[in-house]
C-alpha cells in the first residue's frame, strides 16, 4: 500500500480543560497529516476513542473552536492559525437541522455559505448530484422531522460537506444505529472523505470496532493512574498496521484482537 503522510492539517498542542478545580482534559497533543495516495483522492479519517463521560465532547467542542481550552491551542490551515468557530464542520449526535426548512433548503443554506460563488443553476445541480449520491433524492422536498434518524444523519453530514469546510467533526456517528445502518454510515463517511483530498473526518466515539474500522489513525483517550483528567494514551497508525482502507476489515481476526485489546485501554 503506497502512501505518504505530508503536511500537518490540524495540530492540537497541550490541550487542557478545567472547570474550577475539576480537571477534565490534560496535555492532549496530536497531529493530523495529509495522507497522499498516488492516483487516488484520499481524505483522512481520524478517530478519538474513549469511554462515555471522559470528556470527548469537551474536546470535540475545542477542536470545533466552540470552546476555548484552559491551556494549549488547536491550529489548522496552511498558516496554522488558531481554529475559529465555523472553520470546522460539526455533525452533532442528534443531527440538528433547520426544522423550518425543507431538506433542499437546508442544503442550499450550506451552499450559500460556501466560499465558492455558485450560481443558482450550479446549486441545483450540486444538490441533485449529491442527493443521488447520498440516497436523498426522494426526500429533498420533505422537512427534517419527516425523516428517520439515519436519513437526518446523511443530510447533516452532506450539509457540512457542502459548506466547503475540509474538517468535519462527527460526535458518536454510530450511536443508536443498528448494524445494517452502521455499515451504510461507514460507506457514507468513506464517500465523504474521498470527495476531496483535503477532506478530514474526525470521529469522536466510544464504539471502538466501528471507529477503528473506518479510520486511518486513531487516538485513545483515557485516564492514567494517579493523574486527573483524560489525555491521549495511545496513537494507532492503522495504515501501518494494514487495517486502513479495507471494507472487510471487521472480519479479520487480527483486527478483532486489536479491538479487544483496546477495550481494556479506554
Amino acid at each position, binding site marked *: 500500500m503506497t502512501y505518504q503522510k505530508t503536511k500537518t492539517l490540524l495540530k492540537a498542542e497541550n490541550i487542557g480543560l478545567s472547570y474550577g478545580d475539576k480537571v477534565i482534559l490534560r496535555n492532549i497533543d496530536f497531529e493530523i497529516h495529509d495522507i497522499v495516495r498516488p492516483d487516488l483522492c484520499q481524505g483522512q479519517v481520524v478517530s478519538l476513542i474513549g469511554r462515555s463521560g471522559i470528556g470527548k465532547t469537551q474536546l470535540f467542542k475545542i477542536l470545533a473552536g466552540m470552546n476555548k481550552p484552559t491551556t494549549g491551542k488547536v491550529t489548522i490551515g496552511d498558516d496554522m492559525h488558531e481554529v475559529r468557530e465555523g472553520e*470546522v464542520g460539526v455533525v*452533532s449526535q442528534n443531527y440538528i437541522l433547520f426544522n423550518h426548512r425543507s431538506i433542499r433548503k437546508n442544503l442550499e443554506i450550506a451552499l450559500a455559505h460556501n466560499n465558492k460563488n455558485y450560481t443558482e443553476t450550479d446549486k441545483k445541480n450540486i444538490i441533485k448530484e449529491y442527493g443521488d449520491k447520498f440516497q436523498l433524492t426522494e426526500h429533498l422536498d420533505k422537512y427534517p422531522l419527516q425523516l428517520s434518524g439515519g436519513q437526518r444523519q446523511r443530510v447533516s453530514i452532506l450539509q457540512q460537506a457542502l459548506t466547503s469546510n475540509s474538517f468535519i467533526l462527527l460526535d458518536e456517528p454510530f450511536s443508536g444505529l443498528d448494524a445494517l445502518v452502521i455499515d451504510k454510515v461507514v460507506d457514507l463517511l468513506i464517500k465523504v472523505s474521498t470527495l476531496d483530498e483535503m477532506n478530514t473526518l474526525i470521529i469522536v466515539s466510544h464504539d471502538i470496532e466501528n471507529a477503528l474500522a473506518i479510520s486511518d489513525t486513531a487516538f485513545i483517550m483515557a485516564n492514567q493512574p494517579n493523574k486527573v483528567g483524560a489525555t491521549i494514551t495511545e496513537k494507532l497508525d492503522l495504515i501501518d498496521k494494514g487495517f486502513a482502507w479495507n471494507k472487510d476489515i471487521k472480519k479479520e481476526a487480527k483486527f478483532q484482537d486489536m479491538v479487544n485489546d483496546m477495550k481494556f485501554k479506554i
Partner: protein
Amino acid sequence: MKQLKTFFEPFGIISKGNMLALVFIQIVLALGLWQWLSGGLIPPPSKIIGKVLEIIKTGNFWDNFFASLMLTLKGMFIALFIALLVSYLSLVPFFRPLAKFVIKCRYLTLTGLIFAFTLLTSDGSQLKLSLLLFGIVPFFVTSLLSVIDGIDKQEFELCATLGMNKWRTLWEVVIVGRLDQVLEVMRQNFAISWMMITMVEGLSMSEGGLGTLLIKSNKYIDLTTVFAILLIIFLIGVFFDYILGALRFWLFPYTKIQLRDK
C-alpha cells in the same frame, strides 16, 4: 370496548370523528344541564340563543361588533410589532434590561393607570388603544421570550459551523425559524386582547363596541342580553382561534408534523 377505553386513558389517541362526537355530546350535556338547572336570574340557554338571533339582526350590534374587532386587530398588530421588536432586541445585551422590565409590567394593574393614560392621550380612541397595548404587550413579550429561551443551543452552533455571522444566525434561527411560534403566541394572546377589549371599551364608551353593549345591559340587569353578548364574544373568539390555528398549519406545514395526534 377497546376504543372506548382509549377515551379515558392518558395519552389516548382517538380519531377526528370520535373527537367531534365527544365534543358534541359534552356540549349537549352541558347545555341540557344548564337548561334544567336554570331559573331565577340566570336565563336558560334556549332564551339566550333566541336573544343572540335577535341581536345579530340589528344594525346597532354590527356597528358595535366592528368597532370592537377593528380596535382589537389594530391593537394586536401594533402590540405584536412592539413585542417582536423588544423580544428580538433582547438578544442584544444592551436591550435585555428593557425586555426584562416589559415582562414585569404584567404585574401593573391597568385600573391604577387609567388616569395617567387619560392625561397622556387626546381622545377616547387613543385611550382605549394605549390601554389595550399596555395590557397585552407584556404578555406578548413574555411568551415570545419563552420561545426564544427554548431554542436549542445546538441550532446556534449549527449556524456557526455553516459560517453564518451573528446577525444571519439571529435571522435564520430566531426570526424565520420561529415565525410559526410567533403566530401561535399571537393566537394565544388574541384571547387576552379579545377579553381585554370589553374592559377598555367600558372605560371610554363614546365609540361603542361590544364592551359598551355589555356594560349598558348589565346596568339594566338585562342578563339575557348580557349572556347573549357573552356568547357572541365567545363564539367570535373561538372562530378567530380556529382561523389563526389553521393559518399556522397552512403557512408553516412543518408544524403539523410535530403534533402528537396530527
